[in-house]
C-alpha cells in the first residue's frame, strides 16, 4: 500500500471523526401539514422475545389504530416498528450510535436512567424544544414523581412508560417451618437479620438474597445498595455530590458483611454469571427465604402460568413486606420504610422529520385506552393513575405497590456519571462479599469514585 493511500485514509478518518459530535435540530413546525408521514418507533422489545407483550401491542394494536386515526384526518401515515430485544447495554449502544449520526427512530423507548447521559451528550433535547407546545391533558393523570422519570436538570425530555417498586418478597412456607409469622413486616434491618437467623436452621435453605457484586450488574445497585442506602437516611446523590466513604455507606457494607459473612446469604451465587436467574429458580423451589426485588418478580418471575421461575402456588406461598430503614425513622426523609423505583421513558428524536406528528403519536401511545390495551389483560403499574385505578384492583401485590410503596419511593439520579458510580458500588459489595473488611472496602470505593467522577463531585 502506497504512502499516499495511507495518508488519504488518515485524512478521511479525521473528516469522519469530525462528524461524530454533530447533532442537528430545526423548525418545530416542519412538515406539520404533511399529508404523508412516516414515523418509526424503536423499542427494546421483540415479538416472541424480550418484552413480547409490548412488542405485540405496538405491532397489532398501536400501528393499525394510529394509522386509522390519521386516515380519518386525511393523512396517510406509515408507522414502522424497529424491534430489538437484547441486553440493555447493547440496545443503549445502538440508540446512541443512531442519535449520534443523526438517524434513529422518531420515538425511542429508553431506560429512564439513560436520560441524563443522552441529554448531556446533546443526543436528545427537552421536549418543548423538539416539538413546541407540549400541552396535553394526560399530564394530569401521571403522578409528579413518575413524571420525574422523564425529566433531567429540571427539564422535561420524555413521557414515562410506567414504573415499579421494590419490596422484600418472602416464602410463607419456609417462614411457617421456621416459626416465623405468615404476615411479616420487619421494622429494622435487625428484624430482617433475626428472621434470617431463624431460617438458617432449615436444611438447604439460603435465608436472605440481597443482590451483590458486579455479575448482577445494575440489579445489585437497584435491589441491594440503593434501597439499603435509602434506609440509612442519605441518598447516594445529594447537593451535587456523590456519597463517598461516609458512615452511611459503611453501614450498608456492614449489612452486606453480616449477611454474607454470617452464613445468611450465599456468597458464591452472587458471583455466578447467571446468579440472578438462579436466585429466582431457587426461590421458586423454596430454597430462598427472603429476596429483595421489584414487582417484576411477582408479575413475570414467579407468576404461576408464564413466569420464568413459575410457582404454581404463588398467591399462597409468596408474601411481601416493605423494605425497612436501618431502624424506624432512620430512612430518607425520616421514613420508617423505603423503596427505589425505575422505569422506561419514551423520547422524541430531535432529528425527526415530523415533530408535531411525533408528539401526536406520543400522546396516542400514552392515552388511557392505549395504555390499558398495552397490558393485554394483565396487571401492571402504568404511568396513568386512571388506568392503575382500573387494573390493579384484582392484584393485591400490585395494589400494595401503588398504595404503599410509590408514596415512599425514590428514583435514581439520572446523571451521566450514574453508571460509573453504580459500577463502583457493585464492586464494593463484591469486595465485602469476598471477605474484605467494610472499612477497607469503603476506602477503595471512595478512590474508585474519585477516579470516576472527580474529587470535586464526591462528598
Amino acid at each position: 500500500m502506497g504512502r499516499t493511500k495511507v495518508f488519504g485514509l488518515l485524512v478521511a478518518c479525521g473528516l469522519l471523526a469530525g462528524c461524530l459530535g454533530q447533532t442537528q435540530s430545526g423548525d418545530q413546525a416542519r412538515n406539520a401539514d404533511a399529508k404523508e408521514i412516516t414515523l418509526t418507533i424503536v423499542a427494546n422489545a421483540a415479538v416472541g422475545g424480550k418484552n413480547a407483550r409490548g412488542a405485540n401491542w405496538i405491532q397489532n394494536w398501536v400501528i393499525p389504530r394510529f394509522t386509522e386515526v390519521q386516515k380519518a384526518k386525511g393523512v396517510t401515515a406509515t408507522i414502522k416498528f424497529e424491534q430489538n430485544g437484547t441486553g440493555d447495554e447493547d440496545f443503549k449502544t445502538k440508540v446512541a450510535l443512531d442519535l449520534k449520526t443523526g438517524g434513529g427512530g422518531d420515538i425511542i423507548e429508553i431506560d429512564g436512567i439513560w436520560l441524563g447521559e443522552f441529554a448531556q451528550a446533546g443526543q436528545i433535547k427537552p421536549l418543548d424544544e423538539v416539538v413546541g407546545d407540549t400541552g396535553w391533558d394526560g399530564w394530569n393523570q401521571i403522578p409528579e414523581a413518575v413524571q420525574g422519570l422523564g425529566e433531567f436538570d429540571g427539564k422535561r425530555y420524555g413521557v414515562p412508560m410506567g414504573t415499579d417498586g421494590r419490596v422484600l418478597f418472602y416464602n410463607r412456607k419456609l417462614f411457617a417451618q421456621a416459626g416465623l409469622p405468615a404476615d411479616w413486616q420487619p421494622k429494622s434491618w435487625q428484624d430482617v437479620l433475626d428472621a434470617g437467623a431463624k431460617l438458617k436452621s432449615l436444611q438447604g435453605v439460603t435465608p436472605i438474597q440481597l443482590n451483590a457484586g458486579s455479575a448482577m450488574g445494575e440489579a445489585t445497585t437497584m435491589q441491594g445498595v440503593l434501597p439499603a442506602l435509602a434506609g440509612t437516611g442519605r441518598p447516594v446523590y445529594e447537593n451535587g455530590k456523590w456519597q463517598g466513604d461516609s458512615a452511611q455507606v459503611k453501614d450498608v457494607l456492614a449489612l452486606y458483611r453480616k449477611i454474607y459473612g454470617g452464613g445468611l446469604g450465599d456468597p458464591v451465587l452472587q458471583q455466578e454469571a447467571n446468579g440472578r436467574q438462579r436466585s429466582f429458580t431457587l426461590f421458586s423451589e423454596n430454597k430462598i427465604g427472603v429476596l429483595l426485588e421489584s414487582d417484576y418478580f411477582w408479575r413475570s418471575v414467579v407468576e404461576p402460568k408464564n413466569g420464568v421461575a413459575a410457582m404454581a402456588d404463588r398467591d399462597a406461598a409468596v408474601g411481601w413486606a416493605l423494605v425497612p430503614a436501618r431502624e424506624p425513622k432512620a430512612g430518607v426523609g425520616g421514613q420508617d420504610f423505603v423503596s427505589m423505583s425505575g422505569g422506561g421513558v419514551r423520547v422524541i428524536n430531535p432529528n425527526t422529520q415530523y415533530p408535531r406528528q411525533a408528539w401526536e403519536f406520543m400522546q396516542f401511545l400514552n392515552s388511557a385506552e392505549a395504555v390499558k390495551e398495552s397490558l393485554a389483560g394483565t396487571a401492571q403499574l402504568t404511568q396513568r393513575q386512571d388506568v392503575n385505578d382500573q387494573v390493579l384492583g384484582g392484584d393485591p401485590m400490585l395494589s400494595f405497590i401503588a398504595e404503599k410503596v410509590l408514596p415512599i419511593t425514590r428514583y435514581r439520579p439520572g446523571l451521566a456519571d450514574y453508571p460509573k458510580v453504580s459500577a463502583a458500588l457493585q464492586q464494593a459489595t463484591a469486595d465485602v462479599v469476598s471477605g474484605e473488611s467494610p472499612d477497607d472496602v469503603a476506602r477503595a470505593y471512595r478512590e474508585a469514585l474519585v477516579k470516576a467522577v472527580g474529587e470535586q463531585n464526591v462528598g
Partner: protein
Amino acid sequence: MDSSGLGVRRAVGFVAPALLLIGIFLVFPALWTLYIGITNYQLTGAAAANPQVVGLDNLVEAVRDPLFTNSVWLTALFVLFSAVIGQNVLGFLLAWLLRSVSPWLRRTTEGLVLLSWILPSTVVAFLWFAVLSRDTGTLGLLLGQPETSWLVQYPMTSLIVFNIWRGTAFSMLLYTSSLAAVPPSQLETARLVGASGWQTVRDVVFPHIRGHVLTNTLLISLWTANDFTPFLLTSGGPNHQSEVLPVLIYRQALEGGQLGYASAMSMLLLVGNLAIALVYLRLLRRRA
C-alpha cells in the same frame, strides 16, 4: 520463480479485490479505531458531544490501571496455558494417536473434536454452563462435588479447560496433515533402533513439522488472545478474576461507553499481538 506464468500485472489483479475489501472494511475502520484511541471519546454524556484529542493519556492511564495490568496477566495465562500448551499438545497428541486406530474410532473422535470447534459460541456457552454450574452441573455430579461452582471458584482454570475443548480441532487438523508429510521410512528406522515414542517425536517428527508448529502456534495464540467467548461464560467475574483483555475492552466500550479508552486498550492489544507475531517470525527465520 513465476512458474505459473502469472505475471505481476495479473497477480495484482488477483490480489486487488481482496485488498480492496480489506482496505475498506478492515484497514480503514482499524486505523480510525486507533485514532479514537487518542481521544476522550464517549458514547454518551458530555464527552460525547465534544470529543477532545488527549494524545497518549489513555495509554498512560491504561498502563497505570490495575484492571488493565490484571487483564494483561490473565490474557497471557490464558494464551499460554489454553493455546500454546493446551491446544497444541492435545491437538498433536490426537493427531499422533489417531494414526494407528481403527477408522471408525478415528472418525468418531475427529468428528466430536470438530463439533466442539464449529458450534456457535452462544450455544457452546450454554453447553458449558451445564457442565460447570452448581448442583446440576455434569462435572460436579461426576466428581461427587455438586456444591462446587466451577466458574466462580476456579474461573481461569475453567476458561482454560474450556478453550482447550473449544479450539483443539484446529491444531489437530493441522498436525494430522503435517504428520502425513513425515516420511514413513524414517519412522520405521526410528522404530528399528528402538527409539521410544517421545524420542521419535523429538528427533524424527519435530524437525519435519517445525514450520507447522510455529504457524499453528501463531494463529491459535492470536485467536485466543482476541477471543470474546469468556465473556459469555463468566462476564469477566468473579471480581475481575477472569477478565481477559477482549472482555475488559468490551465492558469499557459497551457498559462504560468509554470508547476512547477502550480503543486505546485495543491498540495495546494490537501491540501484544505484534509481539507474538515477531517472536514467531524470528523463530521461523531461524529455521530457514
